[in-house]
């Protein structure tokens, strides 16, 4: 099911989305560019700061460098250095406000002169200070580690160099550098630090770092800060260090740029961008919305026009609008409306006709229905007649069978009876002859012997015929009893089958049909034997009438087997067989291939019906044309029987 949407809403939402998306992308791109710009700006600013500090430090340190140079000059002249030493040192110190003290040491490290003059320390042994022992055997200028005046807490550094047998030591006040650092506006969370060669802070934006004599945590023994770190943890704050080494002193300026500071700048930028983009978005969306409203008012007019038309007013024509795209809908719609109007008129005309036609049709339907009802009654009547006819046919089949049975019985009995009559006549003649001979007195032993032999033969023959008749009657009786009696009891199946065969013996003999029965002696079942008996009789009858109809002789085999599940009786003949297309119809009512020969087509149907009713049994047929036909009766054995 298609979900219904509002076009106007979709237009609005889409336009808002696209506006916001494009503005967002723009903001993001600008932000990314600006972040780089901000970082670059920060670096530029830091570089400028480092330049300033470096220049100032250079300038500051230039003083002692100049002093060293002046001293070199002093010692290069061939003058009495000792006597001029004091004035020279004062000269050095003159207006050199950053150098607080100058000492001149002898080769043993003892002070020979100071500036400002301090007689108390003349002769003091400074030999264990690094500024002496580091230069006493070297031509290098020595820059000491920063130390601190305990009165002022200001950092100081000593610079010393050996000149001939003298070592000049300048103590440089670095407080001004510290003041310079503090005066630079680096930003709230940023720091500027100046460290000496050991990493100790000479100056720091936060003076406590200097007061506490802290060492920069990232200044390792090789005096290198790993400047590849973009970000480091500086006393709990994420910072980006910018490093610059100062050549003369090997001091290092480090500007710690707080990431928070950069992030603040970036977030300000981002917020501004977002704000601007929101304002622009609102403006754009408002403009866009008004445009959409205009468009949809036109669409609404079209919609209303269409509604009017849909209500049946085909005279209503939609007015054209300023949009070509919509006019491409309006024009065809108007044409369609005109066509609809024409068609409607035609339809109305046809409606009337159809109504009239409907009336006719209704009449016809009524008539037809009456006819059909009558026909149905007739059919029902015919069906009822057919059923009666079927019953009559079944009855007449039964009567026919009975007639045949009676005919068979009559023949079977008449034959031995006839024999008995003949024998009786013969014996009557011989008795009369014997009587004549006895009466005439001519009866001899020979005549008596001859008479006895003849009578004996006759009696034997008579007995045989009597027995034959008795057996036949017994069989018949059993069969009829079986047929008449539907009571269930245990009976020997083979015996019942034998009896049934016997009952048909005349017919079998007449048609030269041999019957072979294969049956185990002890096959017994608990049921009514009537069905089996009747089935065998009917199958034999069927075989005679159909299987062996054009044959001079035939063989019928009856095989009886029994297992736990069922009793199976196979009746197989070597007759003409049944065609494949007829096999399925064999058990159908009135189906016969011998109607011309008086076949009713009920025999097998009766067997099937009987087996089903009496035993829940079945019968099947298999056949090969001109070879054999096999009927298989299956009677299931109930477990509780």
């Amino acid at each position, binding site marked *: 099911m298609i979900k219904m949407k509002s076009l106007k809403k979709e237009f609005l939402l889409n336009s808002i989305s696209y506006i916001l998306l494009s503005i967002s992308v723009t903001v993001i791109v600008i932000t990314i560019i600006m972040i780089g710009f901000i970082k670059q700006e920060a670096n530029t600013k830091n570089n400028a700061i480092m330049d300033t500090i470096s220049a100032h430090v250079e300038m500051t340190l230039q003083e002692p460098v100049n002093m060293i140079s002046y001293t070199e000059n002093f010692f290069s002249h061939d003058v009495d250095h000792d006597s001029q030493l004091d004035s020279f040192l004062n000269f050095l110190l003159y207006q050199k406000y950053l150098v607080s003290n100058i000492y001149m040491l002898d080769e043993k490290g003892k002070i020979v002169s100071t500036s400002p003059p301090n007689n108390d320390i003349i002769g003091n*042994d400074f030999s264990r200070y690094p500024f002496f022992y580091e230069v006493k055997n070297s031509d290098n200028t020595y820059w000491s*580690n920063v130390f601190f005046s305990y009165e002022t807490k200001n950092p100081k550094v000593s610079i010393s160099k050996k000149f001939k047998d003298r070592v000049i030591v300048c103590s440089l006040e670095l407080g001004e550098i510290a003041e310079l650092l503090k005066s630079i506006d680096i930003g709230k969370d940023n720091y500027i630090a100046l460290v000496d060669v050991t990493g100790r802070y000479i100056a720091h934006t936060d003076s406590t770092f200097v*007061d506490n*004599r802290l060492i920069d945590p990232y200044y390792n023994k090789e005096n290198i800060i790993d400047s590849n770190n973009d970000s480091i943890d500086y006393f709990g704050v994420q910072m980006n260090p910018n490093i610059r080494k100062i050549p003369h002193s090997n001091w290092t300026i480090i500007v710690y740029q707080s990431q928070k500071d950069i992030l603040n700048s970036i977030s300000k930028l981002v917020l501004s961008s977002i704000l601007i983009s929101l304002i622009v978005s609102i403006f754009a969306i408002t403009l866009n919305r008004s445009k959409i409203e205009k468009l949809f008012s036109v669409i609404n007019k079209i919609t209303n026009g269409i509604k009017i038309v849909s209500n049946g007013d085909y005279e209503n024509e939609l007015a054209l609008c300023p949009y070509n795209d919509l006019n491409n809908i309006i024009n065809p719609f108007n044409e369609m409306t005109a066509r609809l109007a024409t068609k409607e008129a035609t339809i109305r005309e046809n409606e009337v006709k159809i109504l009239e036609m409907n009336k006719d049709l209704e009449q016809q339907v009524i008539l037809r229905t009456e006819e059909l009802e009558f026909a149905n009654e007739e059919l029902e009547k015919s069906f009822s007649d057919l059923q009666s006819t079927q019953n009559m046919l079944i009855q007449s089949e039964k009567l026919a069978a009975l007639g045949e049975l009676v005919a068979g019985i009559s023949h079977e009995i008449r034959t031995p009876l006839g024999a008995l009559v003949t024998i009786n006549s013969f014996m009557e003649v011989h008795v009369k002859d014997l009587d004549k001979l006895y009466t005439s007195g001519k009866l001899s032993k020979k005549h008596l012997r001859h008479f006895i032999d003849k009578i004996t033969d006759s009696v034997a023959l008579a007995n045989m015929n009597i027995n034959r008749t008795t057996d036949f009657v017994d069989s018949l009786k059993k069969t009829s009893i079986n047929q008449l009696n539907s009571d269930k009891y245990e009976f020997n199946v083979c015996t019942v089958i034998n009896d049934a065969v016997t009952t048909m013996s005349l017919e079998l003999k007449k048609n030269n049909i041999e019957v072979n029965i294969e049956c185990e002696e002890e096959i017994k079942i608990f049921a009514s034997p009537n069905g089996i008996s009747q089935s065998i009789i009917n199958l034999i009858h069927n075989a005679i009438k159909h299987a062996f109809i054009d044959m001079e002789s035939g063989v019928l085999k009856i095989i009886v087997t029994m297992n736990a599940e069922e009793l199976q009786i196979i009746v197989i003949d070597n007759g003409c067989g049944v065609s494949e297309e007829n096999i399925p119809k064999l058990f159908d009512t009135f189906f016969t291939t011998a109607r011309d020969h008086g076949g009713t087509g009920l025999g097998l149907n009766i067997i099937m019906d009987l087996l089903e009713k009496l035993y829940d049994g079945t019968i099947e047929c298999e056949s090969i044309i001109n070879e054999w036909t096999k009927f298989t009766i299956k009677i299931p054995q109930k477990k509780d029987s």
Partner: protein
Amino acid sequence: MGIYALQEVYMKKLILLIGLMLLLVSCKSNTIKIGFAGSLSGQYFELGMASKNGFELAIEKINKNGGINGMKIIPVIKDDESNLERAHEIINEFAKEEVKYIVGLGTSNMTPVILKALAEYDMLFVSPTMSTPLLAQKDDNFIRVTETHLIEVKRISQFLSDNLEARKISVILDLDNEAYSKSYYENLVKDFEEFGGTTLKAYELTGDDRNYNEVCTNILKDDSDALVLITNTTDASNILQNLSKLNYSNPIIASGWCATNELITHSGQTAEGVYSIRTTTTDPNREEYKEFMSRYDEKYREVPSFASFLAYDSVQVLTEGLNKTNSLDTVDVKNSIIAIKDFTGVEINFLIDEYGECDRKRFLSQIIDGEFIVIDE
């Protein structure tokens, strides 16, 4: 709003408040503050700075190893500026900031500050370098990892008498640290007398204007056999320099207070031969010592002084006490420290007795070729 609704509103607020408080409490319990009080400026700044360095080094190591019972140590460092008044102020600041455990103070002149703090606040002090006997043998919240100078004084007296065969000594003392130097001097006089000696004169240095030359000139005039310096390093080095210029040749003994490496630096060759009874290690291969030296050099780029070792030991003692007890009560921690008794120091093992007093071996040393060499264990 009905009464039940109001009750509900207040109940919710109360639950929120309790939750916040619990949160705060739970947040707080993850850290513990340990204060450092020392002279980071002023005349005793060298001792203070050296102590601070040792303190920081110890805190760093403990935090790296997980803190105290899982609590990270927050160091709170304050500078008493070598000034009593400022020292009182920083104690008050510590109290306001709820710092109960303090490594400090550094110099014996701060004794009144300690006494006042112990009386007014629930604090536990572990001092690295205060050796005044005025705080000795008291059942209080004061522990130190250095001995009182009484033993040092006795040994010096014995050394002067037995080894140097000195019968008369001169003494220079810094009265700005009266609590240390006066007590040191008085015990020296007493002990030296017991050994058959006499203290001829005590020269007192006080204030900013110290005329070392005059003092040294007068000492030369004394007919003394030896000189004992009960001063800070700066004074001691100035005295040595002046004495050298005056060709003073008698043995000089520096008290433990000024027997530092800075003395050697500031005094140059004039410090050669100076004796001292000082704390040191006789086993430079000792694991704790080697580790300390390596870390100190890496962090501070300088040679540590005795105060650095003692401050480090102070932190160790405090944290071992805190670790042993689950309580944060200062008395419980103190008792815990006393119960531990035996401590492994950086330079040497030491004992803390039931009064929080330290028993640490000191060694007779002499400055030879710019180094303190142990000459008698």
